[in-house]
């Protein structure tokens, strides 16, 4: 469970930015793009334990 840090407008903005970026990079490069994005965000976060639990949570309900 992660705490809420974003208001609805920001969340919607990020939703749209990500969707448009996925459409831009194209299907072949989509996974590479998303993985790079996670690594950039993880580096900025600087918390290995949090990243470890986020990886576990993101793998649920696939």
């Amino acid at each position, binding site marked *: *469970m992660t705490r809420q840090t974003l208001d609805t407008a920001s969340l*919607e903005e990020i939703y749209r930015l990500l*969707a448009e970026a996925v*459409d831009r990079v194209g299907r072949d490069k989509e996974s590479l793009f998303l993985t790079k994005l996670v690594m950039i965000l993880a580096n900025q976060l600087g918390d290995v334990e949090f990243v470890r639990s986020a990886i576990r949570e993101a793998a649920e309900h696939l």
Partner: protein
Amino acid sequence: MNRDRHQSLYFDYQEYGFKRPPELDGRPVEHAVVVVGAGPVGLAAALDLARRGIAVTVLEKDCMVSEGSRAICVSRRSLEILQGLGVAETLNAKALPWTSGRSFYQGREIYRLQMSHSDDERYFPMVNIQQNYIEKFLVEACQESPRVSIRWRSEVVGLRQQSDEVQLTVRTPEGVYEMSAAYVVAADGARSVVRELTGLSLAGESYEGRYLIADIKLQSEYPTERRAWFNPPSNPGSTVLMHKQPDDIWRVDFQLIGDEAQAEELPQDHVCRRIQQQLDMCGEKGAWELDWYSIYRAHCLCLDDYVHGRVLFAGDAAHLVPIFGVRGLNSGFADAGNLAWKLAYVLNGLSQPELLETYTQERRSATLEIFREAGKSTQFMTPQTRGFRLLRDAALSLALSHTFVRELVNPRQTQPYDYLDSALNALDDHNAGFERGPRAGAPAPNLRLEQGGFLLDFLGAGFTVIVFRQAAVPGHEEPVVKVGDFGGETLMVVVVSRKARSQQGATVLADTDGRVFAAYGAREGTVYLIRPDGHVCGRWHEADSDQIRAAVRRAAMIVEGDET
């Protein structure tokens, strides 16, 4: 359509007869307003004009109310508009009220919709009722009105605009005739003939979204609420919605994808199979019967201008909006409420004709807001690209265990639109200085009153000034406003008082516990000016009669020199 509408499982379709109009016998009649289309929006506009003293003739090419349940969700704001037309009570007695909804993904609830509601409200945030009932109640109200006449089986086939009137050519079973009207309200639906005859077309985006909407008769104990399933086994890769309606009728909406979305028609046995799969999935075991189904296409289209000379477009004739959030009919009722008082004021010689231009300004802004909101819903419900589909699926999956994505799953039901940028709003009011209460342009909220009844019941049909007082002061002695006439229209004054006893000669509403004061962010001397359609057009912490009169002159675009 596979089922003749006379055979509906719940609705007795009555045939309305053609009556020979005088024009067919060479006796021309002067018509103030002709409404084209006896759908819910046209009939609401006709009734609203009629109660403001305008005679209205409605032309309808059919001889019955529309087929099937169609628009089934009526919002609180729409009920307030219908109350003014004397139809809300009848409609409410038949309709099923609801406040909540659930969204499901992978067999689990991921979102609980809860619309705000309390004992202070007169109406539920939403009620469900079939459109054929809505139209029937409106037709009955028109039949009772001495100022409305409906001409059934009368199809508009020609239209010519003159500087001072509109001429219509009407085709009937007994021949073709010409009629003229000072103004025409085009409420003839998505495939508006009037729109075509005036050479106008809708502009915007046309989503590829297509839906199968079906009504079944089924006895079920499940309560009235909105249910949505994402990627359910009954519609893999797509969505399903269910709504309960009166008479044990259930609406099932399937978003169509793949081959189904390409089909022009879907065979009835195919539709029944799809419905059975959905009922199996949600555990409904009872016997059921198909009543009606239709294929619906989602659009984001509207006219650039809702007023074309002496023709005013309303409802689907003016704009087509997506299905999600139930904004189609509800925005049509708001159109009717907005245009009726303006047209009546112009026809009564009180207002300048330019007032009609604000109909486009206010209602087209509302449509564009709908496109933004419903567009987001549509993008979530029916993502058009891989990127948006991926994000949607990620949000649904996260919603099973994370609350932070909750608002992304919110179905965004219709909200009343606030005319914040309206040219009719007061220039010098203290709008920004209020901490609570409806902003200038917003509809005035209704509230239960201590003495019984509700606040909006006490507002006038024209402009109303609400004055908030700590002690009772009779309206006619109010120093703030001398009750004035504007070209024959009386400005009504309502005093909300913390220490009120009802008094002779004024409408004084008691508010000893201060609930109305609080809801309006009021203090001693606060003044709200309410338009004939129930929207606030100005609010002041203190105001004198000159300010109020200037605000009314602005909001009604009063013809110069007509104030008495």
